């Protein structure tokens, strides 16, 4: 089925009629009405919707990724502690840290250690996709939407700067900050290309691993950026779904047989998450592999009156109120 027909077969998902309850909550918290109606469908109970909305009002704990390409994590811990920072290592990632306490000066983005590239400021959930993809030092990896480079540089760190990463970014300004971050962090195994990933469809080479952290509504970033409460209309959400479906189709084409694709978004919208991955499973024949040993709830297999492939429950969702991270969706897919 082509992408347009696929989306058409789920068009009810994009026809949301907010209830009075949704409208009241939207007015109280400053969201678009349709967004709240969707949250009621996602969580299935108003109590949890309230908890989620309250969770989005609380600032997230800061976090950093120690960059082992440039320093040892023990050395970094020692140096930041001397500056008045209090760090706590993540249970599931040896080089990820919560920043429990910071001095007034220098700020996290202005320390000498930051400039030296000893660490990168990165959200906890955003450390999961590269960790799940886990490329080997001999892999050829494609990062289809790379700016600002947090995940690209994490991939390089996991690969110990071996192998090759092809990282794409189509925006001229964003690719500059991407390059700057890669340089600061000492990444040396990456080819940067300023282009739309969809234009690689006819490329004659295949990749062992692909990271597709798609452009999205950023609905999961509301705790950090309140403008996201009203930024995305339902039409824009539809456009994002269309783009994401096009991208996942290209990713599938460029992936080697038995290769792994990690699809992720900083959105909790099933339109950008389960709906897209469901296309990869049902239309492209990909297989979902269970993600283990990282925080997250099972993904949805039902939304409004639609059912997705049951495999999709093996993808994960993260929420500010439950996991104390940005809202995120991550799915590990294998080409068979």
């Amino acid at each position, binding site marked *: 089925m082509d992408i347009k027909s696929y989306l058409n077969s789920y068009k009810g998902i994009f026809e949301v009629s907010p209830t009075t309850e949704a409208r009241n909550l939207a007015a109280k918290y400053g969201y678009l009405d349709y967004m709240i109606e969707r949250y009621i469908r996602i969580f299935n109970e108003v109590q949890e919707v309230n908890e989620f909305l309250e969770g989005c009002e609380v600032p997230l704990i800061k976090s950093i990724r120690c960059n082992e390409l440039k320093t040892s994590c023990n050395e970094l811990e020692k140096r930041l502690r001397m500056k008045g920072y209090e760090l706590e290592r993540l249970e599931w990632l040896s080089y990820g840290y919560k920043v429990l306490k910071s001095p007034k000066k220098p700020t996290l983005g202005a320390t000498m250690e930051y400039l030296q590239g000893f660490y990168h400021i990165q959200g906890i959930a955003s450390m999961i996709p590269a960790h799940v993809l886990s490329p080997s030092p001999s892999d050829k990896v494609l990062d289809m939407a790379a700016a600002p480079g947090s995940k690209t540089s994490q991939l390089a760190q996991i690969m110990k700067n071996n*192998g090759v990463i092809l990282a794409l970014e189509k925006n001229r300004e964003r690719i500059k*900050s991407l390059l700057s971050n890669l340089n600061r962090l*000492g990444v*040396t195994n990456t080819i940067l*290309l300023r282009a739309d990933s969809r234009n690689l469809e006819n*490329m004659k*080479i295949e990749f062992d691993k692909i990271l597709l952290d798609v452009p999205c509504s950023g609905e999961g970033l509301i705790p950090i950026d309140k403008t996201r409460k009203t930024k995305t209309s339902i039409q824009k959400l539809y456009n994002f779904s269309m783009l994401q479906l096009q991208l996942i189709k290209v990713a599938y084409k460029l992936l080697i047989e038995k290769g792994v694709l990690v699809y992720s978004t900083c959105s909790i919208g099933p339109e950008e998450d389960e709906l897209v991955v469901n296309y990869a499973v049902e239309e492209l024949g990909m297989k979902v592999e269970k993600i283990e040993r990282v925080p997250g709830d099972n993904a949805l297999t039902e939304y409004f009156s639609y059912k997705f492939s049951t495999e999709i429950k093996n993808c994960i969702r993260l929420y500010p109120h439950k996991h104390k991270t940005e809202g995120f969706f991550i799915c590990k897919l294998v080409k068979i």
Partner: protein
Amino acid sequence: MQTRKDLMLNYNILDRNKICHVLNNINVKYNCNLCEENFLKENIFLELSGDNFSQVFIFKAGEFNKLMEVLNGLKALRYFPYSVGMPIVVVHERENEVEPLIPFGYIMLKYCNNIFTIPDSKHGEKFTYGKEIVIVNKGKKYLPGYYLVVSPEGYFLGYARLNITRQNEVVVIPIRDIGWYLRKGR
């Protein structure tokens, strides 16, 4: 598609003679031996050319086949990379000038002799704000010239020109420093 302004038009792999020719300017300025055997053997040197300038990048020699496979795949689609591996120098063709870039500083420390250690972190921080600093020199004698500047712990902070006053003070004039990542890099 890429637009004209930052479009790289071509890339070449530089052989030993060519890269040593490019790096010679830096060897002289910073008193280095960048044509050292291991450095040349461990890296592939790629020159990406635009309209008025070119940049040289290094990539691990051990990954040559994978690198070329990807570059050739892109070339077939008429795409040229924005960057490849680590950028080391920019070559301004009109001025016939070769400038080392910040990431290269970490490597140059191994091969260069003109290294100036800032004695305290306060001056080190000031240097990374792109500010000129004056150090009362009590130890090693320095000659005026181009230097790699490092922190008291030996970490690369940037490139500078050193002047020595009659009172034997060292004036450190920044050329490029790692504070660029904060000021311009975001």
